[in-house]
């Protein structure tokens, strides 16, 4: 039996409660509040206590999908990534970078948000990047 705790930050609201993910044999089985965290001081709300439950849902996407003949079909990473790069480049080449738009994610990490805006600005030459803070 492999049983361990991994310290992390709650994925729900902006409070940023500190928690341990409880992991047994490679599966998430629970969350526990961090007692010496200044913000939550050993407490979590009902969402924090249940946060691990969605991660291993059978509904998770596990393979890239590419639309063919109107239907989303499973594809390799190479095909999916090549399609994204070539379709976005051809739109940019035909209509300019400002004909593309990027939505980033308030759900994802700083590192991921940084890279998304870098990809938009440096890769496609447009500042058309926004996310749901505005909503």
């Amino acid at each position: 039996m492999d049983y361990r705790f991994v310290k992390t930050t709650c994925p729900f609201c902006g409070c940023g409660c500190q928690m341990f993910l409880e992991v047994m044999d490679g599966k998430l089985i629970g969350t526990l509040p961090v007692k010496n965290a200044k913000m939550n001081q050993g407490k979590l709300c009902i969402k924090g206590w249940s946060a691990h439950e969605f991660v291993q849902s059978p509904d998770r996407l596990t393979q890239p999908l590419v639309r063919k003949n109107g239907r989303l079909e499973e594809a390799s990473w190479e095909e999916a990534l090549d399609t994204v790069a070539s379709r976005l480049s051809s739109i940019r080449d035909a209509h300019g970078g400002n004909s593309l738009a990027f939505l980033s994610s308030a759900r994802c990490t700083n590192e991921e948000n940084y890279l998304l805006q870098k990809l938009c600005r440096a890769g496609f030459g447009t500042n058309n990047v926004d996310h749901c803070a505005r909503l």
Partner: protein
Amino acid sequence: MTNSIPEIEDADCVFVIGSNTTEAHPLVAYRVFRALRKGAKLIVVDPRKTQLAQLAHIHVRIRFGTDVAFLNGMIHAIVKNNWQNREFIEARTEGFEDLEKMTQKYSPEEASEICGVPTDAIREVARLYATSKTSTILYTLGITEHSHGVDNVKSLANLAMLTGHIGKPSSGVNPLRGQNNVQGACDMGALPNVYPGYQIVTNPDIMAKFEKAWGISLSQDVGRTIPDMMDGLIDGSIKGMYIFGENSVESDPNIHHVRRALTSAEFLVVQEIFLTQTAQLAHVVLPGASWGEVEGTFSNTERKVQRVRKAVEPPGQARPNWVILSEIGRRMGLKMDYSSAEDVFEEIRSLTPSFAGITYDRLHDEEIQWPCPSVDHPGTQFLHKGQFTRGRGLFHAIAYRPSEELPDAEFPFILTTGRRYAHYHTRTMTVRCPSLEREFPGPMAQIHVRDAEKLGLNDGDSIKVASRRGEIVTPVKIGDTVPEGAIFMDFHFQEANPNWLLGTSLDPVSKTPDYKVCPVRLEKHPTDGL
């Protein structure tokens, strides 16, 4: 937030406006409870009788969308009674005369006409807020999600500067941010007008810095906002869209409009963990690794940068988002050969002065709030000590503007929307948390008992809610949480999502849609099987 969450419990006056804190931010509400126990005065300004409102010394049951009139009324009362902080106004601010002149038109009597709050309550709230030693303002989307959201926020800033309740502990103007990393997404420049660290895209020196770092020439045009992007897809000026971790179809107002926009795209790519309604419209869907499966950082509402860590492997072929984005970047000829999330963070630090002093090593055992300009800097617990970012704080003289779309004979009720304690946004995650789904399994609108009588409704009956955009059916809970003439709906359930009903009226500056005031018509709906 200008200040930090633990400071709330030491405030003498807690002023909560447009925030259902116990449901949306339970661990902030806990600090408010502690403040109460320590003797603080609690003022809650909200049209709804929320849980926190029931614990307040004064619950100000303001009319929907009239915050500016109420706040100007408070400012009028403060100035009239000399409760303002003259020293602070003189030393730290400018534009006070303009504010004083504008608010002369908002005596408590005049403000009361608009906002429906008794004049005595306006004066008493003004006195408590202004004369307490420390007063802290907490707000959320009840302030910002209006066609005059920016005016609301500026009015709160006026109040804090007028009384000097800013730039010191247990005070300030504190937006409680709704999502785990909405602060960080802003900090990282996922906005059309700024690079990471709020560095302006139109500043040539800033642009040159990023061009040098990224090895490519950049655009000086300010980009487009989400509502403007959606319009652009429909008018054809935007042809391709990349949506990363956002379920726009269900979360944006006026779903008809958003679906039309996204299905107009020549090419739509969605990077997601579930096949959301939005992902189902994509040409390519890229499966990302989830929270719990990746390393990285989030910035919380207090500007605290905290680690998230990998505990388990992603399922199937799902990959960390930083890997996916780097792969596409490389195909576009960019140098994006990162070896880890920490490697990306090092690049962020090198280009973002407010993050320069934060390292993964330090985050191992320190809690650091930006700005943190150097590795020997402890971080910043509260902002605006000694001076404001622009130097002197600028008062804005703001006149009350009614909400853009108002009730009329055809649509006489006001629909307002919000979050419920067990769910989160479009429920893509919480629907898959069995504990939460059990707790709150379906939509439940709230209406006032007298309206229920007029409509012939019992608890649990279904009603049809119609606006100029469309109609939906939802069960109702009858009570006195909402005032007469209003209906509250959560936005968590596909089958009764109020976003079908909302319009596209926007704040003119922030382009934030109005999710809080939407005229609707209510009718009893026959319940099947009874």
